[in-house]
């Protein structure tokens, strides 16, 4: 404006060119999206624009869910499913973690087991259902086994990856202070592998939920999976969707639970 400025030649603020590439959380958008989807479906099915063969009315699904709850059947289905999830995942994940750690620690175990695990990985569990009947019976055994089998391989892979990723300088530090092999494994390798193991857990548990349906193909009268299968065979879309929503919510719960465990156990991470 003044002469002084004019004398200094052109004078302008530096151009801004930063920002972006840093997504900021906007929680409400998620709810809006769900709400919009549900409203669209409701409107579509009501107006006949979506045929009842294609999608059930969301309000009917809600009704079905309400009935399920009121009749007490919800828990009759949920309890056995949760116990199957729990036992199956417990077996699969604990075995997987143990084998994964052994693979991470011992060259021979690694050389022997990694190809076996790689070969087992792409085997579809439902293909083996007839065999599972023979191997583990049609009781709870085969359901546990199927879920355990499905969670085992991803857990192994995540665990030995996590052990491989433990900072080698920490291990060298342990050795340089004369710590015993067992101390190093217990105090350095295991806690160091924990973040990787937990994030593997997330995936394994999601897979366990997915496998619930396959597991309950084998002689289950009650269980969310059995409920879904029956709904499917009766082409009862309301019940099918109610069951799927339950699994979906279960998945979200499990993921939140793992998140809490992570926050609790891995508070030391930056």
């Amino acid at each position, binding site marked *: 404006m003044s002469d002084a400025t004019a004398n200094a030649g052109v004078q302008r603020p530096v151009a801004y060119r930063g920002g972006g590439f840093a997504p900021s959380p906007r929680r409400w958008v998620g709810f809006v999206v769900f709400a919009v989807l549900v409203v669209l479906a409701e409107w579509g099915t009501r107006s006949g624009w979506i045929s009842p*063969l294609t999608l059930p009315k969301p309000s009917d699904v809600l009704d079905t869910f309400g009935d399920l709850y009121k009749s007490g059947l919800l828990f009759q289905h949920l309890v056995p499913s949760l116990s199957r999830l729990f036992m199956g995942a417990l077996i699969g994940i604990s075995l997987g973690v143990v084998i994964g750690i052994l693979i991470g620690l011992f060259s021979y175990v690694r050389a022997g087991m990694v190809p076996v695990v790689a070969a087992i990985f792409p085997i579809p569990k439902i293909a083996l259902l007839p065999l599972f009947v023979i191997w583990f019976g049609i009781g709870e055994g085969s359901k546990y086994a199927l879920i355990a089998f499905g969670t085992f391989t991803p857990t192994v892979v995540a665990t030995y990856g996590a052990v491989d990723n433990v900072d080698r300088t920490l291990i060298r530090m342990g050795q340089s202070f004369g710590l015993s092999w067992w101390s190093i494994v217990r105090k350095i390798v295991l806690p160091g592998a924990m973040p990787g193991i937990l994030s593997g857990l997330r995936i394994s548990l999601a897979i366990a939920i997915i496998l619930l349906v396959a597991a309950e193909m*084998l002689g289950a009268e009650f269980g969310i999976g059995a409920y879904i*299968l029956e709904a499917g*065979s009766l*082409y009862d879309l309301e019940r099918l969707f109610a069951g799927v929503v339950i699994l979906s919510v279960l998945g979200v719960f499990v993921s939140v639970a793992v998140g809490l465990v992570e926050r609790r156990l891995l508070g030391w991470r930056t």
Partner: protein
Amino acid sequence: AQNKKIKVGALRFTSHSASFVALERGYFADAGFDVELEFFQAAQPMAVAIASGDVDYAVTAVSGGLISLAEKGAIKVIGGALKEEAGIDGQQIVVSDAAFQAGLADPSQLDGKDYAITQSGSSFHYVGSNVASAEGLEMSYKPLQKVGAIIGALRSGQVDAWNIVPHIAKPLAGAGAVHIIGAVQDYLPDYQITTAFTSANNAANERGQTKDFLAAFSKGIDDYNGTMIDKSGGDAGVDEMVKLIHKYVYTDRPIEKAAPSIINGTMRLSPNAALNVASIQHQLSWFQSEGLVDADITLETLVDGSYVEMINI
């Protein structure tokens, strides 16, 4: 109509022979159809495929899913196919070797036993439940989804009993894996096992085409019944029919091995695709009483009786 393309759904079972015969012997072509057979692994998706319009006509057992789809206005039963008939080996009640050795030799002893079914609301469930009520006993039903899983469970003695078509029951019994302890027809005489059905649209709006289809289909039924049951063509006729069916069933086995199974599987198909409405009503009522389908579904929702003869009304 000339060379109208239609799709007919089928399973690779002898009970679908009528379609194979009608196709192979040109009855479909004569009726002006260019038929493409669409094969399924299980009956349930076939019903859904009719509903979605992917398949025009198919044959399958009455199941909860079928009724449900009919209720949604998607499909209609238009005729009958496989049925139980006195004097012809029909579906057998079998028990596992373990149960048999333990003394289970008659359906009346089934109380408290495990009965294998594929799914709730399947025809196995219906049969088992009727056997139980006829004998006045209680069984627990084990849904195992797949026939293979059921056979495995029977062999290893994890379930006690099951009912199955003769061509599967007989070889299993022959191998000592299971024992036949009764026939389904003793409990469900004239049981209409399978029905022909189509989409509600075809039934209502394509009457000409549907009629023509049923006519050609009935010719296939007549040929099959005549050759395999009434032996009108003698053994040579049976051989030729077996050869024809072998193009579709047990294709991966040589004909010598497949022939006994095909012959064992012979059961009567309803002549002229006539439908035993009493049996259908009985099945529908059972599904309703079990709470598997809505209680207010009527027979008219399920069946379009305008095409073939309705027996036992």
